[in-house]
């Protein structure tokens, strides 16, 4: 039983294409996140949704658009892919309410832009 799942696991695509990454959590959590981990393993938050509402939007190009159809899903759509978008993207979730809850991470999607 996978708590936070992401598809696809690997994504190889050409510059200029549009792609989506899907995330689902079966933990009943209200808050979901997208993180980007670069080639140096540096991890940075991109977006956070709480009950389908966007609450954190870091300085991310507007080519990146998250969509939350319901609180168990948070998908990431990327338009006009660039070489610099190559990274591992992690979805995560946590319970709502307090700031001291740990986050549960998905296995990651390795995006390679050629």
């Amino acid at each position, binding site marked *: 039983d996978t708590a936070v799942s992401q598809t696809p696991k690997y994504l190889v695509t050409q510059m200029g294409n549009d792609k989506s990454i899907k995330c689902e959590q079966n933990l009943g959590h209200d808050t979901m996140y997208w993180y980007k981990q670069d080639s140096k393993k540096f991890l940075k938050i991109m977006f*956070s949704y709480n009950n389908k509402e966007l609450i954190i939007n870091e300085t991310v190009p507007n080519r990146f658009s998250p969509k939350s159809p319901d609180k168990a899903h948070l998908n990431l759509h990327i338009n006009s892919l660039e070489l610099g978008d190559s990274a591992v993207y992690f979805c995560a979730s946590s319970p709502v309410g307090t700031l001291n809850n*740990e986050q549960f991470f998905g296995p990651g999607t390795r995006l390679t832009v050629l």
Partner: protein
Amino acid sequence: AQSVAQPEDQVNVAEGNPLTVKCTYSVSGNPYLFWYVQYPNRGLQFLLKYITGDNLVKGSYGFEAEFNKSQTSFHLKKPSALVSDSALYFCAVREAYGGATNKLIFGTGTLLAVQP
């Protein structure tokens, strides 16, 4: 602004020896502190957290961490390292107030290599 520093890119230790992975933080108020571990090609897994109370917190796989307010540190420790502990370890901090926009900030990670 909150921040977290992991001064060592890599820590090498022999199996059976104690290990320490260092973390220092900076926040305006009280911190919530976390350690996560990332095995190769996997997502991050929660190890332990400090919220309040005892400065020594115990977590998964025999790890523990000590919160030191005066030194603004939260070093991860284990009395006896295992080869299977070899992984990338992340320290993270968020301030203990503010709304849902309060972000979790991660350190740059420390690669722990345990030699047999």
